[in-house]
């Protein structure tokens, strides 16, 4: 309840863009060790890797991949947004940009999903 109130009282585009950047960064950091673990199988256990890759055709895995690409896109554009915000001296267009970032990320992720299914 208090957390919801805390978010509601802050929910302006720049703060939401910040939170999205943070959360996507944390999620990607959690994902990376698993990613390397799977890649390492190419050397340590090729048969297991093949079995895993066969799984990636399943819809649920594709959905997870969509999530992953979404996180990557959101995080990349979030970083570009931050660099643009802090290194290019511009002013009121910032909020528009934050909204544009979210829209572009979603578009890319959605395109990927459409291509996958």
């Amino acid at each position, binding site marked *: 309840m208090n957390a919801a109130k805390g978010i509601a*009282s*802050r929910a*302006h585009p720049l*703060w939401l863009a910040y939170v999205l950047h943070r959360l996507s960064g944390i999620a990607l950091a959690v994902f990376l060790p698993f990613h390397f673990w799977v890649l390492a199988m190419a050397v340590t256990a090729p048969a297991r890797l093949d079995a895993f890759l066969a799984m990636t055709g399943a819809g649920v895995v594709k959905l997870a991949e969509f999530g992953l690409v979404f996180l990557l896109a959101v995080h990349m554009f979030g970083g570009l947004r931050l660099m643009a*915000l802090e*290194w290019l001296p511009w002013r009121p267009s*910032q909020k528009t940009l934050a909204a544009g970032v979210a829209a572009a990320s979603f578009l890319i992720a959605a395109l990927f999903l459409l291509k996958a299914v």
Partner: protein
Amino acid sequence: MTSKFLKVTIERGADAKNAQQVFDVPAHESQTVLDVVSWVQQFADPTLSYRFACRVGMCGSCAMMVNGVPRWTCRTHISKVLDGNSVTIGPLRNLPIIKDLVVDMDPFFDKWVAAEGMHHGGLTRDDPVALVDETSAARIEANAGIECINCSVCHAACDTVAGNPEYLGPAALQRAWTLLNDARDEGREAVLDAVSGKGGCHNCHSMGSCTAYCPSGLDPMSAIAGLKRETTKSFLERVR
């Protein structure tokens, strides 16, 4: 307005969240949050402490948390912030509470000093008055930040201040940015050193709450971004 009475919750005491008191306050046309607090103090509980002075948005002394958002209460109409028929008013965030709605502003102003937020003059009374070119890019930058009324709304809005008590905060850093762009100020090195330290501008995560909630419509976040650029430039120049 839906009813003739407003349900006003006021957070009191050092542990504000745990000491809430509810008052029924008569509703009026064009009533400000400060009017509501004043009614409570004058007609319901004279022991309620709060702070105000000018009532016209100039002095910066009446800021409080209104439904979790920092606001200047004298220029905030209660009708714009009511949640149904109720409102919760508390002391400003990120500053020590003295009593009820009164916070200790000392840490806030100490940070202005720590950010070298004072004029660094180089001329004497015998020198001619320094001419300021109002159209120069630097002056336009400086002018954008000098209308700060020191109300501490940005300081209360900032989650970085909440998480790092050493962080100088949006107001002090914006002040430093105006000085850096003031042709008459000769404290460039001192200001850059002050704002690039442990609690300096690089702590800012550009969450933008300072800019979103500044009642004077200023943009401390962009001022801090300016400091980030200038301190980095100056660092690279020193390395070279």
